[in-house]
């Protein structure tokens, strides 16, 4: 039987376009902007994981800050104590967080929507405390956290921030293409079938437990990779950076970008960093304008009323209307 090839022309074209745009932007971006975009992409990778889990598989997580933190700490610890090359730590961070997510996926199997949200909420709230534990202080640096150097430029003539920007952008493009291929494959259809109707999916022969835990693992892995890049961009990790609100902000980015979409992850990450900056400036204009996260909270609720599929969903809908 012939299966449709997931590598379509559209995918290749989008991928090439994304990489070219990324490289082109690098030439106009200042070092600080490059740093900001790198952070936005780090969040974007984590948001991609959240989109796959929540948007496509229908499992909730308000606890992705835990995996984000785990990825960041694995990278930080390997650089500080084992002297690894920063980029060499990424696969390890990915593997560790995949295993964590896969294991957390097991209790998640027995929990439906709301209860899973609750369990992951608990995970996110407890994370900073776990990172501060005395027994692990030798490795995690306790409350102070860990400091290390940013990775050296990948080739001469590039600044440290621009080099990291380039690497992050390319990794993000690859991960987005990978996510696209995953979701348009047989496994991807299984993942979505589980969201739409788990009972029907299981009668079709889909192994619910395997798919749900693996999706949780993949999602946590993406959050971990995002966390690792976040650590590299800031050259610093500390327990209180990864508090419960990081999980909330990731969710906000995901919803604003479009939770059932892949490009939405990029938009969400950019919104997280730049939206916050502009909202901050905006709120400084006058005493009566509330601070950014109040505005975003209101925005979040309004989106649930009028545009639950976020910016990318609205673009798709507008496009469909134009084509009609």
């Amino acid at each position: 039987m012939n299966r449709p090839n997931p590598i379509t022309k559209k995918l290749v074209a989008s991928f090439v376009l994304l990489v070219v745009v990324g490289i082109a932007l690098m030439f106009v971006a200042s070092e600080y902007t490059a740093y900001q975009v790198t952070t936005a992409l780090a969040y974007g990778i984590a948001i991609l994981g959240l989109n796959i889990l929540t948007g496509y598989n229908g499992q909730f997580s308000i606890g992705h800050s835990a995996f984000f933190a785990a990825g960041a700490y694995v990278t930080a610890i390997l650089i500080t104590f084992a002297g690894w090359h920063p980029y060499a730590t990424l696969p390890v961070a990915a593997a560790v967080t995949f295993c964590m997510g896969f294991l957390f996926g097991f209790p998640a199997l027995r929990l439906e929507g709301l209860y899973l949200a609750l369990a992951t909420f608990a995970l996110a709230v407890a994370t900073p405390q776990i990172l501060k534990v005395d027994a692990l202080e030798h490795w995690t640096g306790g409350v102070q956290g860990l400091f290390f150097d940013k990775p050296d430029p990948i080739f001469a003539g590039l600044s440290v921030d621009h080099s990291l920007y380039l690497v992050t952008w390319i990794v993000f493009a690859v991960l987005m293409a990978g996510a696209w291929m995953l979701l348009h494959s047989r496994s991807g259809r299984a993942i979505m079938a589980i969201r739409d109707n788990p009972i029907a999916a299981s009668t079709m022969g889909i192994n619910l437990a395997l798919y749900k835990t693996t999706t949780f693992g993949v999602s946590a892995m993406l959050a971990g990779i995002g966390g690792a890049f976040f650590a590299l961009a800031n050259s610093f990790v500390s327990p209180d950076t990864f508090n419960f609100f990081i999980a909330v902000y990731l969710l906000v980015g995901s919803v604003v970008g479009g939770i059932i979409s892949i490009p939405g992850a990029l938009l969400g990450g950019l919104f997280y960093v730049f939206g916050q900056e502009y909202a901050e400036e905006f709120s400084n204009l006058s005493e009566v304008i509330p601070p950014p996260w109040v505005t975003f909270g209101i925005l979040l609720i309004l989106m649930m009323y009028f545009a639950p599929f976020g910016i990318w969903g609205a673009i798709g809908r507008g496009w469909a209307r134009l084509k009609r």
Partner: protein
Amino acid sequence: MDLFLQLTLAGLAIGSVYACVALAVVMIYQATDHFNFAQGEMAMFSTFVAWALYQTTGSIWLSFLIAVALSFIAGIIIERVIVKPVENAPIFNQIIVFIGLLMIFNNLAGWFWEHTTKTLPSLFPEHGIDSTLISTHNLGVILFTLLILGITFCFFKFTKVGLAMRAAAANPDSARLVGVSVGWMLALGWGLASAIGAIGGVLVAPIVFLEPNMMSGVLLYGFAGALLGGVNSPGGAVAGGLMVGVLENWARQYVPGGSELGLTFALVLIVGVLMFKPAGLFGRVIIKRV
């Protein structure tokens, strides 16, 4: 032995606060099948309102009563205006709305009153009882919570409105047929939950200090209590909250490394209960027909 008794009594006091939060959570859960993730931040905001009133009035009891009344009204308004539009939306939309509320209240509090810690005086006199086992504040918290819970119980058991609220939660369609205004009963439930949360906030403020993030931990313990007791049993939620308070205090003292892992204990408890006894200790097992 004295230490053990002290720990247990202090655990009961903080457990009373968890019981309040757990009861608020269960009240909304019973009516709408949802956990209100903003419950803690709403209670925190109410506590700040009480603090602001205390700065102007100078009387802690007066400010407390006004703050609770305001929270009751605010709860009703929030249900009517913000939560109602997503009443029949998918569960995801509802959780996101709660998260939005959580962000709004947390950051509004930081904006209005800044992130420095404030001290709210206790509702109870400083030198009431002379005992080495328990402080006056803690004793007051336990007795006062029991009183509030008793009143809530009587309200649901013996008044017509209470009966209507239970009917609306148990079987909305039939309740509507006999003339119960289900929508308003839900709003009333939100009002009561928010008022009880406010009571919990004011009671816990002298223990944990008043700042915008003070309730996130308390809410987690409240959730743990609600789950342990049984998420569809208000009495169970109260018992669960008290048990979590006592267990937490014991764990802090007797488990090695326990003093710094309080929240992890709540995490383990939540995941453990959900995995092995999802109905909780006193809850009914719900069988869903598919």
